[in-house]
């Protein structure tokens, strides 16, 4: 496996120009969608099958009556332990040699299990193709020595592309500096590879709690439930089976004696 690539989105540098959103649409040939009224400048409200990069416009009323904007360019996290990838029954969702998560459109069969298995609500179902779609980390570009279109287009280097270990080191310096400058809630989201779905390959520097940006505090791998739920199902099966055996048992007769069904 090649060295893991990553995208680091530092929201303290984002100016909300949406160049990333547009560059993504252009490079990936994603058609436009009808705009929707979200109550803020944000469009669209959520990721769709045609919107892989999305600038969130978070309005925070201040004590002095003014409005503060947190601008956060969101994207698929390319989790090291990816719920969508584990859920995929066809193997269409795979991990590239760079650590990114991609959907092989030809292999996807449209079961939509990945859609509900993403802890971030990223994967979307494309009704035109009948298949799931999401950010590809510009798979074609990174295999040709280019960074993702969004990172390339970002005019403030709010979105940075590079080797994960180098970006994490950079991000840690940046968050320390912001704290020094008085941003008390500044934090990294997904940089820690021990406690965050194995680490997010698209990680963020946030200025507030994750919930502010529609992110879960502690994303969990959906498949963690399979083992316990299966055991409890077995328990239920044993009880049902015993009940049926008690009901059908022939008293005073040997098992299966004399049946000529």
């Amino acid at each position, binding site marked *: 496996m090649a060295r893991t690539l990553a995208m680091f989105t530092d929201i303290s540098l984002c100016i909300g120009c949406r160049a990333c959103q547009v560059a993504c649409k252009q490079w990936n040939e994603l058609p436009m969608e009808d705009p929707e009224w979200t109550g803020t400048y944000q469009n669209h409200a959520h990721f769709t099958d045609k919107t892989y990069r999305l600038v969130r416009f978070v309005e925070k009323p201040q004590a002095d009556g003014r409005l503060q904007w947190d601008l956060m360019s969101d994207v698929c996290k390319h989790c090291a332990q990816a719920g969508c990838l584990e859920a995929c029954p066809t193997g269409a969702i795979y991990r590239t040699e760079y650590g990114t998560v991609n959907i092989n459109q030809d292999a996807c069969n449209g079961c939509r299990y990945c859609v509900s298995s993403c802890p971030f609500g990223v994967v979307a179902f494309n009704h035109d193709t009948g298949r799931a779609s999401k950010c590809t980390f510009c798979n074609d570009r990174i295999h040709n020595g280019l960074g993702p279109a969004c990172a390339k287009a970002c005019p403030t280097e709010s979105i940075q592309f590079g080797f994960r270990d180098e970006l994490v080191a950079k991000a840690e310096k940046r968050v320390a500096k912001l704290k020094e400058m008085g941003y008390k809630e500044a934090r990294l989201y997904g940089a820690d590879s021990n406690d965050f779905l194995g680490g997010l390959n698209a990680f963020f520097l946030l200025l507030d709690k994750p919930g502010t940006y529609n992110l879960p505090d502690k994303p969990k791998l959906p498949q963690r439930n399979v083992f316990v739920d299966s055991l409890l199902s077995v328990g239920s099966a044993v009880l049902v089976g015993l009940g049926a055996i*008690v009901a059908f048992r022939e008293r005073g007769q040997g098992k299966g004696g004399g049946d000529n069904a």
Partner: protein
Amino acid sequence: MLKTPDWGMMIVFYFFLGGIAGGSYFTAAIADNFGGPRDRQVIRLGYWLSLPLVLICGILLIADLGVPARFLNMLFTFKFWDPMSIGAWMVGVFGLFSFLSCVLSLSSSEAMVTLRRKVSLVGTLAGFFLASYTGVLLSATALPFWSEARLMGALFLASGASTGMAAISLLLFLSGGSTGEAWGKVKRADRYSMILELVILAVFLGLLGSAAAPIIQGQFAPLFWGGLVVAGLVVPLVLDFVGSKAKTLVALSAILVLAGGFILRYVLLMSIQA
């Protein structure tokens, strides 16, 4: 913001019919292995009910993909930890056991009956799986309502058992076989399953806590409380204790149990999907 998979009525029907198929099969298999000569009709009905149902299940799953041939894509992969992958395989495996049991039930030779019993013991495991894995599948998602309580699979299994047994009971009534002792046995097994289902449902709701909101309040609440809990579980249990002598009442209670099983799948799936 989490996304729902847009599973519609085809999947609701699949979950419902898969439960009945699994339930009726393992009921027949248990009657086959532990019952006596008088259970012959239960055994046959159970096996023969599961076969068309599992066929319909397969058709529903394939049709839901939009482009039917794409179901083949699932057959290049086997992920034992992934309910969607292993489930797709097990529909086929269960279908095979169901088919074998049906064919073997045509013969009454000693050797065939012995073989059928052995086959059905293994098939019972597939039946249990088919009835419960859909619940585990829902709980292995990121959506809190589906994934917060650990009993979805156990609940689906108990419901699959109660609906499978109710279906056999109803078929016995319709085919005029409702006189014998076998009918009483099916009803008794069904009663145990319903009691278990009620208990699991109560614990399930307790574990879900506030995450149960989509079904215990709002527009799906009347269907859940009235259709499933009262009409689908409590009333049939009461009828079972009070009026078990009147055949039509027992048939009615079987219909209520079946409707309740359908409502269970319907509210769990549809309440959080637009």
